[in-house]
Each structure stands twice: as structure tokens, then as C-alpha cells.
């Protein structure tokens, strides 16, 4: 039960809104963090917590692309393919990943480590091509950088190549 595990956090989330249903998306995030995807029992529990019917939870969750309804790989790779990224090579990035991990978009590797999705604009067009892996952005991708990121994730579970607080260009570039 989410309530037993995250009782305090759930209470804090509920306190932000005068109407309970507003807490739905935040609570679905809690559920997704717990299992990597939102289980049916979590949906029932959240419906109960917010005094909604299960279909009301289901109609909302199915509208939003960020919620997984089935188990995902430990690292969910999402590559942007919108025009701004495509102009500078996002299709090549997708081909690299497909070849390196031997999976197509929508699939996961057999070891359950990686899932690949091809997605629309993630608001990093100035530092394209880019991808998001779980919560982190990786930008200005090259094949070499991609290899290092995948190796880092396999060995230490995270990568120092992820983006920090965003600014591009850096001040030095502007001063020239």
C-alpha cells in the first residue's frame, strides 16, 4: 500500500490543493516511483484516497505520456525526434541506440536494463540532439558521448554527463 510507505508525503501533497482531485497526477508520480510503472492496485488505492472512481483515475492516466502502464527497463531512454532535433541528427542517434542495444523503440533489453522510446520535443532544441534517461537530460549527443553514457549507466547507475542547471550558450561564448 502506498499509504503505508509514503503516508507523510501523500499527506503533504494533499495539503497543497483545496480540491482533492488536483493531487491525482502528483500521487501517480509517487506510485510510478515505487514500482517503475503505475500498477492497477495503485490506481485503485489512489482513487480511494481521492474519492474518485477507478475510471476517473484511468481516464486521466491514459492521457499523459509520462505514465507507464507496464514495467519498463531500469533506464528509460527517450530520444527526441521533433524537427529541431532531427535537423541536427536525432535520427542518427536513434539508429545508434537501436544498434548498440539491439532494441527498437517501444522495446526493452532482455536484461531489463534499458527501454527505448522515441518522443516529441523535450525543450532542449539549442543543445540538440538530446535524450532523457529517467529524470536526467543528456544533450549535444555524439556517438562517443552516447557510448560513455551507456557504459556509466551499466557500471555506476548514473552518468556525470547528465545536464545540470541549463544555460546555453555559456557566458564565455557570448562574450567571445
Amino acid at each position: 500500500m502506498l499509504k503505508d510507505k509514503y503516508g507523510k508525503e501523500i499527506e503533504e501533497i494533499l495539503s497543497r490543493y483545496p480540491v482533492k482531485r488536483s493531487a491525482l497526477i502528483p500521487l501517480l508520480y509517487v506510485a510510478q516511483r515505487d514500482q517503475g510503472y503505475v500498477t492497477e492496485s495503485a490506481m485503485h488505492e489512489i482513487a480511494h484516497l481521492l474519492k474518485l472512481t477507478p475510471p476517473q483515475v484511468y481516464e486521466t492516466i491514459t492521457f499523459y505520456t509520462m505514465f507507464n502502464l507496464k514495467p519498463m527497463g531500469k533506464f528509460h531512454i527517450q530520444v527526441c525526434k521533433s524537427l529541431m532535433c532531427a535537423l541536427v541528427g536525432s535520427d542518427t542517434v536513434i539508429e545508434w541506440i537501436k544498434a548498440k542495444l539491439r532494441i527498437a523503440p517501444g522495446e526493452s533489453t532482455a536484461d531489463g536494463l534499458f527501454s527505448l522510446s522515441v518522443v516529441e520535443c523535450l525543450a532542449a532544441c539549442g543543445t540538440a540532439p538530446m535524450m532523457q534517461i529517467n529524470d536526467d537530460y543528456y544533450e549535444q549527443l555524439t556517438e562517443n558521448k552516447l557510448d560513455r553514457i551507456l557504459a556509466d549507466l551499466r557500471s555506476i547507475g548514473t552518468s556525470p554527463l547528465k545536464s545540470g542547471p541549463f544555460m546555453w550558450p555559456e557566458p564565455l561564448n557570448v562574450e567571445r
Partner: protein
Amino acid sequence: MPQHELILLKNMMQPGYTGSLADYEKTGGYQALRNTLGKIAPPDVTAMVRKSGLRGRGGAGFPTGVKWGFLPKDYQGPRYLCCNADESEPGTFKDRQLMERDPHQVLEGIVLACYAIGAETAYIYIRGEMVLGSKILEQAIGEARVAGYIGKNILGTGINADVWVHRGAGAYICGEETALLESLEGKRGLPRVKPPFPATHGLYNKPTVVNNVETLANLPHIINRGPEWFAAIGSPPKSTGTRVFCVSGHVKRPGNYEIPMGMTVRELVYEHAGGMRSDKPMKAFIPGGASAPFLTPAHLDVKLDFEHVAAAGSMLGSGGVTVMEEGTSIVWAALRLMEFFYHESCGKCSPCREGSSWLVQTLRRILARRGRMEDLETLSDLCKNIAGRTVCAFGDAAVAPIQSTLKHWRQEYVDLINEAEVANLIRLEPAGRH
């Protein structure tokens, strides 16, 4: 490079600036709040913003002070402010920088807006993917709460304003203000039929203002330096202040550049963004995000302000400038954007829901060298039946790439279709002649 004063990016351009509360205060941060709360009457703050000429930076460009003025004056119940941080317009990545590098500038703007409109609660609706941004904002809110800039009885004035970060979950349409409100209420993000407008029936049916991140970040500066100062910057009287333009595509130095409105596209692309990345000349550009119609190099001297870009047949939109070099297939580019709109159509209105898929199919057919000349008519016809026939502006945005490329590069479509006819048609003589 021409010299001009930075307003929004000024702090973060300083070496070592971290965006912490201490750093922000050192640059004069929260002075506007100190000088306003309890000292200037809320209607006067609204009047100042109206006088400054500030217009929304999210896309529509509606005058901010006028929007605030629509709230009912005699309404006693709660009011809400929503900060639209759902930055999802392809080509746009400025709000991300404003939030992640200088979060307190945004927060000060939010509290000032709350004060002006009488809201005690503000929600920052940030796009779900920006996890780092939401963490930075939450941390900044925590700092500001401790320092007494946010929360109950701000700076001892008796004024309350609480700010919460609310993450979206991956839907472009939630940047449309009424879809944002639906989403914030825990529902599917379907835009509402207007009227009534959010000013009277917004979040939880209460009077609500929705303002973009960049719009709000301008407020402390307008208060500190006066509306007259702001109104003189840029391209007065209708496009005042600076814009943070996001340059992407085939340029040497893509990125965010803050320039006064009224500068030309040529200056932005060739001086700030370093010009084209290779020796190939420019073929096309989009001046204001994916929803803005394409323009050609003939429009390079168009001034980047609301009126001039509109007069050139496009729109300033969100300030996302995407540049394409010679050799880029225009039909392919239009398809890429159309696929985006097809994916992001919320499905509420039939013309957009059905039409966007037909447009994608038709473009794919033409690109696969299976098009027919009638397809051009089909495309125009579909566009005409989507634009203006939907609940929100998404319909108009979705057809912009096709309508504008058909207008400026019709021959490219025709050439692809001609290739199809040469490749695929087996021309038979009429029967009976052999």
C-alpha cells in the same frame, strides 16, 4: 556584436552566479517585493504593468496588465495565479533556463503578480520532463519561505502568497491555459470552451490568471525601474521590452539570446547565433516556435516584434527561432512538425483529431513518392477545415507548417509528386488500339 542591456539573463551571465537566494539578493533581488507589498496599492501595480506595455511571452502575446484587469473587482472568494512553465513548443527552451539558473527572479515575479491580482495561492505548472527544474524551484521556494518572501504574512505586511510546484505529465496541450487548468484539476488536459474565460471561471471555477514564466520574470524589473523605462525598450509602443529568443537548427551557435524586440532576424541569426553552421545558405526559418508559419530568407530583415512578424505572415509566438539550411527538404520538415501536432492533438475536436492524421498520411505519401497532384488540393482543403474550427488555437497552429510551406515552396511538393508519377505510373494506351 551590438551592445544592449540584458534584463532577464543579466544575473546568470555573471561568473559564479548560482541562482541561490543569497546571490539573487546581492543583485538587488526581492527589492521590488519590499517596495511594493503594502506600499503600492494592487490596482496601481496592475496599472504599472499595463503602462509598461508588457505582453505575454508564452505565445499569444496578450497584454499582461489588461489580462489582470479582467478579474472581477468585487469577488470575495479565492483567486489563483498559475505560472505556465509547461514549455513544450518545439523550438523553445528559454523558460527552462530562467527557472533553472535564476529561480528567484521568477518567484519574485510570481509573488508580485499574486499581490496585484489578490491571489493567495500560485501554482507553477512545470512540464513533467523538467525534473531538475522542478527540484530547483522547490528548493528556491523553501529558501524564500524561510526568508519570509513567500507564505503567510510576507515581510510582516499581512499579505499571504503560497507557491507550489505542480508537475505536468507530458502533454503539449497543457500549455494552452484552459487545458493547463483542467490538468491542474487532475483531469485530462482538454481545453475548455471560452467564454467564460479563466479571469472569471478559472481554476476550480475561481478567478484565475495564467502567465508565462518569462512574463512573470519581467515584473520585478518593471517595478524597480518603472514602467516608462520598460516601455522605452524594444519596439514601442506595441512590443516593449526584450525577448529571450531560442535559436536552434543549422546555426553555428544555437542557444538563448536576449535581445530587445525589434532587432532583425538577420542580426539575431548572423551576429548572435554566429550565422549558418556550414557554407550552405539559409533556406527557411520559423520565427516563433512550431506553431508559427515558415518564412524565407527574403524575410531576414523583418523586425522581431509582434507586429512586424505578423505582417510578414507569421507570428512571434514563443520566440523559438529555428533555422534550416539549403538542402533541407521542406516537405520533410513540414511532416516532422505535423507528426508532432498529430501526436499532441488532445482529441477533443474532430477537425483537429481526424484532420491531423490525414495530413500526416498525405505528407508521408508524397514523401514516399506515391503522391498525386490532387494531394495538394487535399492538403489545402484539410488545413482550411481545421484552422478556426477548433476549441483552442492548436488547430490553427497545426496547419501553419503546411499552409506556409505550400505557399513558399509549392514547387518542392510538385517535384516530389512528379517523381512519383514518373516512377510509379504505368501508362497504358487506351484499350482497343492494339
